[in-house]
């Protein structure tokens, strides 16, 4: 066999080899994950893709009214029928979903970032800072977020930005708690001390040691809370405090459709189902991740390794 001249084996082949390796690794990850994770992940990816592509996927302009076709049942023209103004429900779902999911996602993203950073800082700082912050966390955790959001929106007015802000104000707490306890736990581990002794820089330690060991519980909570936030966002939009007209999201669609629930049940059913299936998908992802945090143990319920039920309730409360 002719020997390959290294200068001839160019970048493209090396990249291809790398690509294959990444695919292989990804497949391995998927295959070894818990069942919930794959099912949830699959559904969620499908939904997100649909939402991202919605401007191209929606057959009609979501705001286009066709008053001759009001409240029609599903047909080949309108797969999910039309609403009271003759607007295509499917298109409205696809476009509206962008708001619902984005608001919830933004809230969670901000909460994770803020909460995790705060939690890690508390763990490092200790002392009064730690005390005070954790007490605040203890307190905020009990609040129903719908209520706090109501209050804040009363002050700053409705709209999806207001929603994100209002929900983040209480939403960061579970992440802070988990991040802090993880940070404390990991800091005490031997391999950290070994790395420090060896002279590794702090950021190196964080990236190579802390994060890979800590991300899973945080990821689990992230998705579990995400599911919950979707429902809360839906609720607030339902009450008219979220996305304002002419924009609409799933919660608002549901509220509008209530009047016609007898005549056209599908109109109310669809946005609710959209919220349900998306929340279910992300909850499944979260539970799949959670199952790996505390593997087996007689298939017992994992409350993510926390001791206090109020901490566990973080992932579980209304």
């Amino acid at each position, binding site marked *: 066999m002719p020997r390959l001249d290294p200068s001839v084996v160019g970048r493209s082949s090396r990249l291809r080899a790398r690509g294959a390796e990444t695919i292989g690794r990804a497949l391995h990850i998927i295959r070894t994950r818990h069942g919930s994770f794959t099912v949830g992940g699959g559904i969620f990816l499908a939904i997100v893709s649909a939402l991202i592509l919605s401007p191209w996927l929606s057959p009609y302009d979501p705001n286009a009214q066709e008053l001759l076709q009001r409240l029609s049942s599903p047909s080949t023209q309108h797969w999910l029928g039309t609403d009271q103004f003759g607007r295509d429900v499917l298109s409205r779902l696809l476009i509206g979903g962008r708001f619902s999911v984005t608001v919830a996602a933004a809230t969670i993203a901000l909460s994770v970032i803020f909460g995790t950073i705060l939690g890690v800082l508390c763990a490092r700082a200790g002392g009064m800072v730690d005390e005070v912050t954790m007490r605040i966390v203890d307190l905020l955790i*009990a609040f129903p977020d719908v209520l706090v959001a*109501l*209050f804040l929106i009363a002050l700053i007015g409705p709209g999806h930005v207001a929603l994100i802000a209002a929900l983040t104000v209480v939403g960061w707490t579970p992440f802070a708690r988990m991040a802090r306890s993880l940070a404390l736990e990991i800091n005490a581990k031997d391999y950290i001390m070994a790395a420090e002794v060896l002279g590794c820089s702090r950021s190196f330690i964080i990236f190579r040691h802390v994060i890979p060991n800590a991300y899973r519980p945080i990821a689990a909570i992230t998705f579990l809370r995400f599911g919950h936030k979707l429902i809360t966002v839906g*609720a607030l939009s*339902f009450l008219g405090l979220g996305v304002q007209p002419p924009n609409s999201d799933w919660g608002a669609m549901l509220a509008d459709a209530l009047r016609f629930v*007898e005549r056209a049940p599908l109109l109310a059913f669809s946005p609710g189902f959209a919220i349900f299936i998306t929340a279910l998908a992300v909850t499944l992802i979260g539970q799949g991740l959670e199952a790996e945090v505390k593997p087996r143990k007689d298939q017992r319920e994992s409350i993510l390794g926390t*001791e206090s039920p109020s901490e566990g309730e973080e992932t579980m409360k209304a």
Partner: protein
Amino acid sequence: MWTFILRRLVVMFVALVLVSVLAFLIPYMSGPEPTEMIIHSRVANLAIDQDTIDKMRIHLGLNRPLAIQYLDWLGDAIQGDFGFSFADRESVSVHIRTSIMVSITLALSALGLALVVALPLGAVAALKPGRRIDTFITFLTQSLVAIPEYWVAPFATLVFSVSLGWLPSAGWRGPEYVVLPALALALRPMAYFTRVTRAAMIDVLEAPYITAALSRGLGIGRTILRHGIRNAMPPVITLFAMWLAGLIGGAVVIEVIFSIPGMGRLLYEAVVNKDIPMIQGAIVCLVSFAILMSTLTDLMYVALNPTVGITDASA
């Protein structure tokens, strides 16, 4: 342990003060003429002339420093006096009193229903962990968690009220009015209660006294009823308390859908109508209640498990 309790109580106190300050400041954050707003909230009759307004301004001491006004307001608030609602000129505290009873009834009904279903479900799942019935129940709880109650509610109403006519669709005029809303509200806590019951029961079933009871011929059913459930209760109870705190104001969507005069709807309508005194009163009550419940449950947990309170994860 006692330091933990003390700290918790201090925090609770501080939080209550903070909330009261925020609530006090609401009029100052929501409009151009806060003092007029305040005056209007303290006067039974809306139609007052400028003269009366000026007199009231002095009478209520609205030109004194804010801190003093806050103390005044706080004094009133503690006695339950938040003034009169802008919407119907009824005393805010009267509204709150009736609404809180409604909310508590609704919350207890929903959570009671959830518990009644969750306990046996969790026990059954714990009996055969990992087998088909357990997998099914776990799947069920996973799905229930994701169901928005405002989605179920209209359809439940459609079936039970409109089609079958068994239950009323809205309002609050008797015990039958609580059924549908409680049902809709109960689904998600049911899922959580089931999971916690299952976990607790699995632990309990491994205990020696269970084997001892079986060895006396009690049979698995009676053993669970007499010895299992009682010992599995503590985490369930804590969860129950937390949910109770959350549902008092957090059931707002259901209250709106079913026209139930509860605290959630009270606050919601106050927000929509910019009914400042009502917002103040409702916020103070709801948030104080949440703070109290949170502290209580934490203390309860410590009472059941005196080793807790050391929040730092030890190496």
